[in-house]
């Protein structure tokens, strides 16, 4: 297990460094600046602003300062939300985005794995085909279409659930965003589980388990499910990335004060430190999720521990 982790860290750290360097350089070569407004500022003010934010230093020094500050968890001031630092915005928004993402991941795993189990237990039957078609449909449905449609049906037409807002995190406000976020991931997990089970059920140890007279349910749950979940585990990294990305649009649709919405506002307003900070943070999180996914992977399939 340890060598696997070390090997992954060995590739993860340069990746992270490359992301930080690349996004930093892109910011620098981009046309336009954070202080470009309707009216050009006078040169003295521009110079003063540049000095205040350290924009007059040579590039490598700016990058060095940036790295040093990142290491202390300081992402710099937000240029659009003038009274906040990026760290403030992250502290405020990230818990909301992570709550959404975690709940959606749990829901997607429950829905996806059970759909995969049901489908695999009746291969080739109508249930199997219907479930797999539904899974394909779900993976192809963008959350920015399902989100508003869920609001239209359950919020506006039926009036069962709140239309938007965070409501201090009370459960009814979370239902629709979490469902909209979870559905595409649930579809992908259902397909992977179904495919994994189909492979696992063809193996020798399953045949001997059956030959010893174990019930089909016991064979499926006790012997086939664990190896079948290996592809699901390796999908957890991309799934986490997908959920973080999806949260951006879900937070916009449902007007939730998560980090994704700040990110979009920052992107629309050229808030360099905010956009840079969020990209760096999310790259770090995704690298972390991939590591966790590798651990689960190693636990499910001992051959991977090497």
């Amino acid at each position: 297990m340890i060598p696997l982790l070390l090997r992954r860290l060995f590739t993860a750290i340069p990746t992270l460094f490359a992301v930080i360097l690349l996004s930093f350089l892109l910011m620098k070569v981009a046309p336009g600046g954070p202080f470009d407004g309707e009216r050009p500022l006078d040169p003295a003010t521009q110079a003063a602003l540049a000095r205040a934010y350290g924009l007059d230093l040579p590039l490598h020094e700016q990058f060095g300062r940036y790295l040093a500050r990142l290491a202390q968890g300081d992402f710099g001031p937000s240029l659009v939300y003038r009274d906040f630092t990026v760290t403030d915005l992250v502290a405020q928004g990230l818990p909301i985005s992570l709550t959404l993402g975690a709940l959606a991941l749990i829901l997607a795993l429950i829905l996806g794995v059970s759909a995969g189990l049901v489908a695999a237990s009746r291969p080739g039957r109508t249930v199997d085909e219907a479930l797999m078609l539904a899974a394909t449909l779900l993976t192809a449905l963008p959350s920015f279409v399902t989100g508003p449609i869920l609001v239209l049906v359950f919020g506006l037409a039926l009036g069962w659930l709140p239309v938007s807002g965070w409501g201090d995190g009370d459960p009814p406000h979370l239902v629709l965003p979490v469902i909209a976020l979870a559905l595409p991931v649930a579809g992908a997990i259902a397909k992977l589980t179904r495919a994994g089970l189909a492979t696992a059920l063809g193996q020798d140890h399953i045949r001997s388990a059956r030959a010893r007279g174990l019930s089909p349910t016991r064979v499926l749950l006790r012997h086939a499910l664990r190896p079948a979940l290996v592809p699901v585990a390796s999908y957890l990294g991309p799934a986490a990335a997908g959920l973080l990305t999806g949260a951006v649009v879900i937070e916009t649709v449902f007007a939730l004060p998560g980090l994704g919405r700040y990110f979009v506002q920052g992107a629309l307003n050229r808030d360099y430190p905010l956009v840079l900070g969020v990209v760096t943070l999310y790259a770090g999180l995704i690298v972390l999720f991939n590591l966790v996914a590798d651990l689960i992977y190693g636990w499910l399939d001992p051959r991977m521990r090497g």
Partner: protein
Amino acid sequence: MKPALLILAAIVLAALFVPPLLPWSHDAIDWDAIRAAPLVPGHPLGTDGVGRDLLARSLVGARVTLAVAAAAALVALAIGVLWGAVAGWCGGRIDEAMMRVVDALYALPFMFVVILLMVLFGRSILLVFLGIGAVEWLTMARVVRAEVMRLKQRPFVLAAEAAGAGPARIVGAHILPNLAGVAIAYLLLTVPQVVMVESFLSFLGLGVQEPLTSLGILVKEGADEMDLAPHTLLLPGGLLVAILVSLTIAGERLRDRFAA
């Protein structure tokens, strides 16, 4: 697969040829029919919040969405096939280094990188598809590499090599033509990915810009108006879903056929 391809063909043909035949263009305002429901005379699918014909807007939006998707998918195809073929053909250290790069890029938060590009270099439509194409080639590279490595061992390639054909000729005349099937299947699967990214960006206001429109923008406009006029959300949303679903189903069937 057939129904999926038929639906897709119908949408493409309609997007290409129907808009000029309609009485209203996608950006003309009909002051007498603002936020009209479907089946109003002159507007078979109704109008949006400022009186623009929804059928014309949806079809023109689909046209832009499909054009961006096709262009970006071709960019992804070109980079992916080239990268994968070189890695697969050279093998050894070069292969390992090139695939390390692909692994590293897989770990990146794509959408955020594309948004970063949009923010930095302005939101031009050219950049939208270059940017998307530049991040969607990874799977193609992996698949092509695996396929090239398999083909490299096949007798007809060994025979060509024994007959003294140079690497350029072997790759050009023997390997690339045999890659076509797999490449087309994954190209079909890349297109919905790209459509998804493009509409995602346009939905957030970071992709295609007015006066051009795309299905993502229309879904956003519809979502803002859905309490007053649900059809402005449901029609472009439905069209987008139809495109995505038919592309995905066709791509998956084709992939399964070549994988078997």
